[in-house]
């Protein structure tokens, strides 16, 4: 096969096109892959590197001093990995001789570590490991042995050769007798990594052997032994219960590394032999479950002096769900006393107040005075067993421990309803933590265990106290919590409502989150809300009260609570009067997601007005389908298919007729998108596709295309081509859930648009087409790769096929030639397709600013004004192209890139952008609106970041995701003389 390599003179890239010999061209010619390759860098230094390297390597000589050789070796290492094979073979030989001849331990260790840097094939690997084994088997310096073993581990894990592994293992058995702790640790590590799993007996022996090293007098060896056992266990060895006692002894080791490893191992044992019975520690002959004992021991570690141990202990506690209930309950138990008298904790005191229905007198000094005298013998000061472990963990100095404890509490509470009731108080306490992350975590944990718990006034009071927090995350977390938890009494509901209304007054921006919260509260407590209704809606038995403003957020909040409660409580509806019913219908229309469908007020005449088809549909099919059942999704699909079929059957029609038909169908699609939510995205997508076809045929049909020349006025054509390109981009980036095939179609369409653009530039303008041509070629390659990657199941677009063929045959892809060759290809028709996959449209909704405010925001001209922005973005997976577009009245457009951390995931396929955008301008005489929109800026990814290709802020490459919102601003000139 002949390969011709062509180089384009003008570009920085050299391009290689593989072309099959002309003779081989048969008709069903499979398109050859195009390949662009950046040539290997030919910098000035590159030529010298090997020379220097080779010189250094050849200079390595045992006759030189060790220090010199060491330095030379360090220099050589710095060249890696850009070395060639010959140099490496030479180096390997040199290293071996050096190792054998030299006496210096450091140098010899360096030799060994250098070996692992060489690029070795599999056979080489085996050879090298064998060499290393030979070299170090008679070694006495522990430094050399350690580095040798280290290299051996690394190489052996990559080559995975049984024979080598067993040879290494037997070598290790010898080396482990060394007195040096480092060597022993390395040996244990090697045993851990290289032991083979499928010989259970051998492994059990190994485990026993390793376990005996946990008694070593050297802490490093002890912890290495424990870690090795753990690794062997992970490989599938059974940890015998008999070692449990031995391991638990080391929980109180002097060294924290040992304690860390021992705790981990203890946990592993407890997980494998959960139900094993062991004698209780106080030697009364009673037996207890091993898991319980292990739990108690790990609980003890939560008082460890070392932070890492505490974190590990707190984390592991959460992973022991099998533990018995009594032990679990103990973890939150801390007997309080004061001057030897039993004292109630604050939680207990509050609880009593609620129980007795009496509230704090608050006046009496020391009303928490301790009561009964405790027996000195009964008090245990050393936490035995699990007692109070979580209490300690939650009070820890370090947030790592606290947050690990909160996590563990949460996971354990999820398993046990009783325990979750106990944890409640403590989690609520954590709302007061000094670090926000921990507070947030506590709130989230509480939410996840909410199904088990019922809140009383005392707990609720503390929870609601946190609603005044200035952090939006905390408040929204609390709203979510309140929405799912169960409240005991009607007073609780009232308290919640009052608190959130206060919250609403203080932080207007929480409106939606609060509504969502009250929706949940209403749904969860229909019967508790019922007695509150008259009070909430300020109804009076015989006086008519004034009608509240249905736009008032606070009133809307109350209504949302009531309506949602009414859903589960039929009697409530009878309480509603006329104006309330009116408000219900109003809210049902404006906030359909928050207000449920209620079985009331059907008698109101104008209810279904909104659902009736208003637009006059042109096609009879659409008309009938819509009138029969507007919202049924199956019929919506039916209509879609019908429309698509219509287009297909219209293939034979004249182009004029086709265009007319397309226009009509387009209208229908748009209407369907409005009417049927479920298939809106598909309909919109199809509409775009049809529209693209329309624009395309318009382009080709226009007079300026047929007589394309540089002299004529081509502006309209240029615009049309642009809009064609933009439609393609909209289809590619504006939707998610496209199948690869569909994506392929769109990309081909885009390729067509780019070709069109190229031809236009070459023929119809006097601009340079080099960059566009280059880009077209790159894109062609991308498309081809993509099509190959998804398999050739799809029928290639005829245009694409022809184009690839053409590119293959072209030796000299210069713009002029390309354009000439492309020109006849445009007659190939665009495919007619129906789209059925679950396509979702990417869209955004700007929640804030609302755009309704009439009062201008004033700021000093030339300085910055921050506008807080709250946007919901749907169905977008990659946020890197999202920009905030700010359009000033003088038609200046700025694209602002929000910070990554401002995007927060908020549900399925939903991203919330919460940020502050900064705008600035010169002084204006009067306030003017600034439009803000969320857009995708594709000028980067769609031009390979080549700025020559796309002018700055070219609107072609900017896809708007939402409606613009306007903010009235008034930059005032700075005052002089301040």
């Amino acid at each position, binding site marked *: 096969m002949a390969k011709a390599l062509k180089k384009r003179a003008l570009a920085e890239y050299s391009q290689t096109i593989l072309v099959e010999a002309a003779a081989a061209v048969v008709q069903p010619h499979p398109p050859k892959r195009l390949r662009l390759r950046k040539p290997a860098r030919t910098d000035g230094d590159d030529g010298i590197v090997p020379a220097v390297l080779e010189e250094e390597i050849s200079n390595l000589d045992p006759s030189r001093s060790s220090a010199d050789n060491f330095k030379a070796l360090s220099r050589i290492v710095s060249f890696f990995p850009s070395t060639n094979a010959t140099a490496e073979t030479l180096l390997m030989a040199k290293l071996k001789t050096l190792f054998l001849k030299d006496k210096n331990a450091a140098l010899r260790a360096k030799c060994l570590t250098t070996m692992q840097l060489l690029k070795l094939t599999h056979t080489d690997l085996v050879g090298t490991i064998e060499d290393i084994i030979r070299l170090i088997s008679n070694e006495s310096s522990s430094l050399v042995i350690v580095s040798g073993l280290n290299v051996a581990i690394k190489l052996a894990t990559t080559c995975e050769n049984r024979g080598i592994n067993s040879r290494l293992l037997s070598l290790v058995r010898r080396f482990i007798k060394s007195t040096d702790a480092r060597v022993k640790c390395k040996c244990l590590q090697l045993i851990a990594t290289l032991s083979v799993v499928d010989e259970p007996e051998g492994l059990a022996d190994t485990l026993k052997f390793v376990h005996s090293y946990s008694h070593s007098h050297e802490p490093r060896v002890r912890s290495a032994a424990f870690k090795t056992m753990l690794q062997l266990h992970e490989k599938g060895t059974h940890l015998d219960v008999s070692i449990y006692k031995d391991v638990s002894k080391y929980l109180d080791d002097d060294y924290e590394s040992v304690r860390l490893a021992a705790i981990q191992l203890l946990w592993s044992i407890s997980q494998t032999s959960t139900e094993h019975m062991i004698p209780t520690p106080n030697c009364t002959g009673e037996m207890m479950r091993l898991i319980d004992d292990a739990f108690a021991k790990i609980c003890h570690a939560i008082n460890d002096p070392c932070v890492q141990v505490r974190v590990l202990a707190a984390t592991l506690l959460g992973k022991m769900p099998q533990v018995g209930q009594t032990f679990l309950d103990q973890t939150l138990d801390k007997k309080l006393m004061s001057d030897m008298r039993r004292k109630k904790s604050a939680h207990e005191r509050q609880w009593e107040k609620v129980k007795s229905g009496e509230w704090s007198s608050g006046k009496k000094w020391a009303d928490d005075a301790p009561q009964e005298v405790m027996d000195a013998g009964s008090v245990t000061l050393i936490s035995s067993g699990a007692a109070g472990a979580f209490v300690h963990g939650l009070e820890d100095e370090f947030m790592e421990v606290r947050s690990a404890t909160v996590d563990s509490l949460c996971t354990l509470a999820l398993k046990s309803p009783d325990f979750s009731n106990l944890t409640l108080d403590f989690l609520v306490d954590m709302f007061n933590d000094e670090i926000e992350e921990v507070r947030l975590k506590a709130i989230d944990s509480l939410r996840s265990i909410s199904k088990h718990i019922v809140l009383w006034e005392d707990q609720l009071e503390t929870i609601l*106290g946190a609603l005044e927090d200035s952090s939006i995350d905390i408040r929204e977390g609390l709203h979510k919590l309140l929405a799912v938890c169960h409240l005991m009494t009607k007073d609780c509901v009232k308290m919640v409502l009052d608190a959130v209304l206060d919250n609403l007054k203080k932080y207007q921006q929480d409106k939606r989150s609060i509504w969502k919260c009250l929706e949940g509260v209403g749904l969860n407590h229909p019967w508790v809300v019922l007695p509150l209704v008259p009070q909430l809606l300020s109804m009076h038995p015989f006086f008519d009260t004034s009608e509240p403003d249905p736009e008032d957020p606070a009133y809307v909040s109350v209504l949302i609570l009531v309506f949602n409660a009414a859903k589960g409580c039929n009697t409530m509806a009878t309480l509603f009067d006329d104006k309330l019913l009116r408000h219900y219908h109003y809210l049902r229309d404006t906030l359909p997601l928050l207000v449920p469908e209620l079985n009331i007020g059907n008698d109101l005449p104008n209810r279904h007005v909104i659902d009736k088809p208003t637009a006059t549909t042109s096609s009879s099919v659409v008309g009938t389908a819509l009138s029969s059942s507007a919202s049924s999704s199956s019929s919506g699909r039916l209509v879609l298919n019908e429309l698509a079929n219509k287009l297909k059957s219209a293939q034979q029609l004249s182009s004029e007729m086709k265009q007319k038909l397309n226009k009509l169908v387009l209208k229908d699609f748009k209407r369907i998108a409005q009417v049927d939510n479920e298939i809106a995205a598909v309909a919109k997508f199809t509409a775009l596709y049809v529209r693209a076809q329309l624009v395309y045929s318009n382009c080709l049909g226009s007079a300026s295309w047929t007589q394309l020349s540089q002299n004529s006025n081509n502006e309209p054509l240029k615009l049309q081509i642009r809009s064609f390109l933009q439609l393609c981009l909209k289809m590619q980036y504006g939707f998610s859930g496209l199948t690869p095939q569909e994506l392929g179609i769109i990309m081909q369409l885009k390729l067509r648009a780019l070709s069109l653009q190229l031809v236009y530039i070459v023929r119809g303008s006097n601009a340079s087409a080099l960059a566009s041509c280059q880009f077209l070629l790159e894109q062609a390659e991308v498309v081809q790769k993509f099509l190959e990657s998804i398999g050739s199941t799809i029928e290639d677009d005829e245009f694409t096929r022809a184009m690839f063929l053409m590119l293959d045959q072209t030796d000299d892809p210069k713009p002029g030639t390309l354009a000439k060759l492309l020109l006849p290809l445009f007659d190939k028709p665009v495919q007619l397709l129906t789209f059925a996959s679950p396509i979702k449209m990417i869209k955004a909704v700007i929640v804030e600013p609302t755009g309704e405010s009439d009062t201008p925001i004033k700021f000093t001209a030339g300085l910055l004004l921050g506008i807080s922005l709250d946007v919901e973005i749907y169905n977008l997976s990659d946020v890197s192209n999202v920009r905030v577009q700010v359009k000033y009245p003088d038609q200046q457009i700025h694209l602002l890139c929000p910070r990554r951390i401002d995007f927060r995931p908020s549900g399925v396929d939903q991203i919330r952008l919460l940020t502050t955008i900064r705008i600035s301008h010169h002084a204006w005489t009067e306030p003017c609106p600034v439009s803000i929109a969320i857009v995708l800026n594709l000028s980067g990814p769609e031009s390979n970041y080549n700025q020559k290709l796309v002018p700055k802020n070219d609107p072609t490459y900017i896809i708007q995701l939402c409606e613009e919102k306007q903010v009235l601003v008034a930059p005032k000139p700075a005052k002089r003389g301040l």
Partner: protein
Amino acid sequence: MPEIKLIPLGAGQDVGRSCLLLSIGQKNVMLDCGMHMGFNDERKFPDFSVITNSKMNLTEYLDCVIISHFHLDHCGALPFMTEMVGYNGPIYMTHPTKAICPILLDDMRKVCVERKGETNFFTQQMIKDCMKKVVAVNLHQTLMVDDELEIKAYYAGHVLGAAMFRIRVGEESVVYTGDYNMTPDRHLGAAWIDRCRPDLLITESTYATTIRDSKRCRERDFLKKVHDCVDKGGKVLIPVFALGRAQELCILLETYWERMNLKVPIYFAAGLTEKANNFYKMFITWTNQKIKKTFVHRNMFEFKHIKPFDKQFIDNPGAMVVFATPGMLHAGLSLQIFKKWAPNENNMVIMPGYCVSGTVGSKILSGHKKIEFENGQVVEVKMSVQYMSFSAHADAKGIMQLIHYCQPKNVLLVHGEAAKMEFLKQKINQEFKVECYMPANGETCTITTNPDIPLDIAVPIINKEETEYDQQPPDPKRQRLVHGVMIMKDNRLKILDVESAGAELGLPRHVMRFTEKVTIREFGAISRVTDKIGALLRTRLNASTPVDTLSENEISVDGGRVTLKINPVPKTETAKEICTTWGMEDDELGAFIFALMANMT
């Protein structure tokens, strides 16, 4: 047996005037030098005559003085001792203590001299001179006071710069905790010590019989009360002492104000607090995780919401929170404010600490509704009165935890009440099985120690033993034997191998050799017999024990460990006498060869 002696000059079964005399390995150390706030006579200061009576002055007697933290009951008597009694030796304290201590001392001096009119009190200059004798130490810095005495500081929580000290002389060591806190708070971390296993742990025991509730409840309660009060438009008065808890409460309120976005003003009224706050800002490394991590963005002690107080603000309308000194409402600004605000039921006073009986603070806490002052003025108390305990001492569990951390051999309790100590003492005995002491003031407590005795071992001996031990996997039951000679010389112990021991002591080495004779019947010349025996030995012994024929009638096995000499028996032709000689340590080999020879016949 070596002894550690301890005499409490103050704080023995008592709170206040902490001052302990420690004698350890011929060194005398004074731990803290505090004054008693309850007394106005000479009982205020520790009784140094215990030392001076023994015809030594303090400088001669004491090797050093260690101050644990800046509270006056731990450092109040320092200028008195150094300048008025006379002491010129080194004084050790941490950097923050050294910085803040003089401020407090000067303040106290002013109160005593200017208010109470005491004479014969130390002057400002004396405080300065005293401070010049102070050596500042860092945490975990091991400092040699002299060749033998070594001290090391550990973090203690409690207040900024509070430290625990480990004092070591030779193999004996003592840990003195000062005051400490095992639960972290808003601005300080928890006390921490490594497992140093001292012979004696001297710990405070203020809360020996208390186990405290979670601090979060307390904090939340406090914040909620303040918040509710200011929401209603009331004024909150918090009487505090200038340093320590005041900063804790400030941080608590400051962060809460920040979190809740409150705008109500908070005032702090105290001159010296501002000075002290500067030091708090500087010693960030001594605070807890949160403050340490965030100080780059904002130093927590640079309060945004807390402003200095002016007396005119008392009559300002609207809600406010005021911190004012002193803490027990017995005098000064806090009392002045109290008089103004007490008659309004919207207002509130929060007492964050203990109040001595007789003060206004204790009166209102015990529920008095009308307070009469010395000048006959009567104030009706309608404001709400709250008590919140924000103490920074370890509770019983905390004390036990510290003991568990450092694992001492003996424990000694100070700085607490006798009855409470009794309980804790019993508990410590039970749980840790260690001896526990609680001497009263002036009572000498003697603790005999079992110190480890250091011993030099020649490295080859150790290596040999270790190599041998490491031939098999470690087993805790296996004995580890070291063969050598122990030499006691120049007050030092050494273990050497036999040769070096002989050389060291100048003694020649005596060797015991056994010689056995056996007569065999063998014809021929001596040399032939020798060769024959040699050949026999070579076949029977393995290669590692070489057999050499030295002369015609002499064979040496393994370089002379066993020698064989073949002599003709006179008067007979056939019998030959073989002398087998071996040293005592080669008994096994010798016996084997001898048996071989004996069997030849």
